[in-house]
């Protein structure tokens, strides 16, 4: 537990992250008002005691919408980061194990190529092909997480491959796959967790951005980005419609970033270098 106090950012980060995770989880069983029921007569009501964030253009409770939206954001970002890790980490490990080889070269060139595509463009293209949906947003964001994790893993793994304990493992007759799994992976895990939180926050931002331009989760699924897009024309009429979802994104991303920084400092002070 003392880890929590190693860093000034960890605690606030953890609290914010917990808050939104809790909101998402609670929304699975309970929300203040049912978000699937529209109440046109009651639309765009300013914040009140009963509805602290007010109601939206269809008369839905914004607090409830944000809680349900947290679920979407977290799910999309989490799965996208999962994809990035699941594909990127093995690729990075493989590239490092055969440094300078053809495999390494192909992986790194492919990475560069993905990096060369502005991510939103790819998202636009993917949704043009497969249609806009949360799933396609996940795929688009996930694809961009792959090179991030591949590079990070490769870089960290390369420096580990120079360690003598890797040499010792090779002397013990272990193959590179086994060494990658037994020695390299656990030692890059911290780094991956830290980068994971950062990518997670970027994923939430990306989901919001995609939903904002209409390429993310589709109604009736609540999504913060779409709430912002829907409220955009009403911003001068009822600013609270845009304010609360925007703040929700801001605070969640902030929380995750603080958590990531804090974890980095606490898990391993040496990792601070890797932060960009």
């Amino acid at each position, binding site marked *: 537990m003392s880890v929590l106090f190693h860093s000034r950012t960890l605690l606030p980060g953890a609290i914010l992250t917990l808050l939104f995770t809790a909101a998402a989880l609670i929304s699975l069983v309970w929300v203040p008002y049912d978000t699937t029921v529209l109440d046109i007569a009651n639309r765009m009501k300013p914040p009140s005691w009963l509805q602290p964030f007010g109601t939206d253009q269809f008369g839905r409770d914004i607090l409830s919408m944000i809680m349900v939206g947290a679920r979407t954001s977290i799910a999309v970002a989490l799965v996208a980061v999962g994809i990035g890790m699941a594909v990127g980490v093995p690729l990075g490990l493989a590239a490092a194990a055969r440094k300078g080889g053809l495999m390494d070269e192909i992986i790194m060139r492919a990475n560069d190529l993905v990096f060369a595509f502005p991510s939103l463009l790819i998202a636009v293209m993917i949704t043009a092909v497969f249609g806009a949906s949360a799933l396609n947003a996940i795929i688009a964001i996930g694809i961009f997480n792959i090179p991030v994790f591949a590079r990070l893993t490769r870089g960290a793994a390369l420096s580990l491959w120079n*360690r003598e304990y890797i040499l*010792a493992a090779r*002397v013990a007759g272990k193959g590179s796959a086994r060494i990658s799994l037994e020695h390299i992976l656990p*030692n890059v895990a911290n780094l991956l967790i830290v980068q994971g939180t950062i990518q997670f926050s970027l994923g939430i931002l990306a989901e919001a951005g995609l939903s904002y331009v209409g390429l993310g989760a589709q109604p009736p699924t609540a999504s913060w980005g779409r709430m912002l897009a829907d409220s955009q024309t009403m911003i001068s009429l009822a600013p609270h419609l845009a304010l609360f979802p925007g703040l929700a994104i801001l605070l969640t991303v902030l929380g995750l970033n603080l958590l990531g920084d804090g974890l980095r400092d606490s898990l391993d002070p040496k990792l601070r270098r890797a932060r960009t």
Partner: protein
Amino acid sequence: MSLLTIRNLSLSIHGLQILRNVSMEVAPGRILGVIGESGSGKSITAFSVLQLLPGGASCTGSINLSGKDILSLSEAEMCGLRGRDVGMVFQEPMTALNPLKTIGDQVAETILIHERVSKAEAMVRAADALQRAELPQERFPLSRYPHELSGGQRQRVVIAMAIALKPKLLIADEPTTALDVTTQAQILELLKRLVAEDGMGLMLISHDLAVVADLADDLVIMRQGEVVESGPAKTLFGNLQHPYSRALLEASAHVPERGNETLEQPLLQVRDVVRDYTGHTHGWWGKTTQFRAVDGVSFEIRKGESLGLVGESGCGKSTLTRAILGLEEVQGGEILFDGLPVFTHHHANQIVRRRMQVVFQDPYGSFNPRWRVDRLITEPFHLLSDPPKGAERDAAIAEALESVGLSASDAHKYIHEFSGGQRQRIAIARALIIKPDLIILDEAVSALDVSVRAHVLDLLADLADRFGLTYLFISHDLSVVRSITDRVLVMKAGKIVEQGPTDTVFDRPNHPYTQQLVAAAPVLPAGIL
């Protein structure tokens, strides 16, 4: 009259006491050697003089530099002092220079900071300083960048920077630790000459008694932030009072007792081995370069023998080790272990591999920090087709740990809970656990403090005795090699230039390179033990 006087200097960092009542003096034209084990506070003492201390440090006592009380000077006044009155040379020449600036600029900067001179004039004087540090302009123009120089040459640049304004005091903090013996000898000679020419005072910090012994006029021996003994070198050496000092001295010259006999039968035969590295200058598309790291090496190790391999950094020792261990394929020649090739059909021969193990230099880097000791030392079981399990495994672990002087209960600790010496014992335990015939020790004791090193050497000798082990002992430290090997190979630029019984080679070197090496190796003056 003394130049630098430190009186009762105590220092703490964030409340943690680092130095306690340290006192020492440096006189003009004289060399003060400061020795002590790693962490004894030598560097911190030096930094105190320059007031370049880490954050949170606070000093008491007094530091007096030619009449000025350092501890009472302001930061601006200290800036005026550093570089002009006191020059400093650091341990690590590879990183002590700004990689983006030319050496001329960096040396001239010392001058420009302190004197109102034109850039051109400063450059002229920088050239002069470099000349004095034996970097003549014809061969090392001012426009060179640090990466274009070798380690020893970079250290000369740092020295030139430190002496550019002819400071009264020069502090050299382990200036040669990162260098080869031959380079080390040259740098030490240079420092000695500069002291004599300029009448500077030199504070020479080292953990190596032998390095300091033939240079220093006065000695200070430190331990855990305290000065345990000090005095003029000549008298002090013959007359050490403090038990720690004596232990240090003894450890430096320690020769383990060895008793096992060598059989005639060769265990390892290396014939005409060639190892080329194919490098890519940039990625896979870049042009390839060929580099021959091992060039036609042949030798034999007999059963029960302890063979030494010495040579400068980068001469191919580790490459050869990897080839013997079957980790890399060689481009020419063959390596036979007990008559069997270590490498067959592009794969390491598992039967042979089982009978060799290795101990590396870095006691910190050779263990996965996330594993417990039991898992670490049983890693070589991977080589066995039927590794011991359960109680049998525990017994093997206990035996291995006990044979290196640790207890069976250490098996459940993590590696960070051990000191450097203990870690090296664990490394040896890991090598022993599959009961190999040959153990290769690649700089296995180079990173250890002298006293710890002595213990480990004793342990190695003892183990060889008990288990009939054969060693290939690689080191750049001649005295260590001398103390533990029967025969020695001298390697230079990938070739074996001389081999023979250890004493013969070291006492009557034939090859000019061997002669140079032996001459450069620092030795404690005779008769001080």
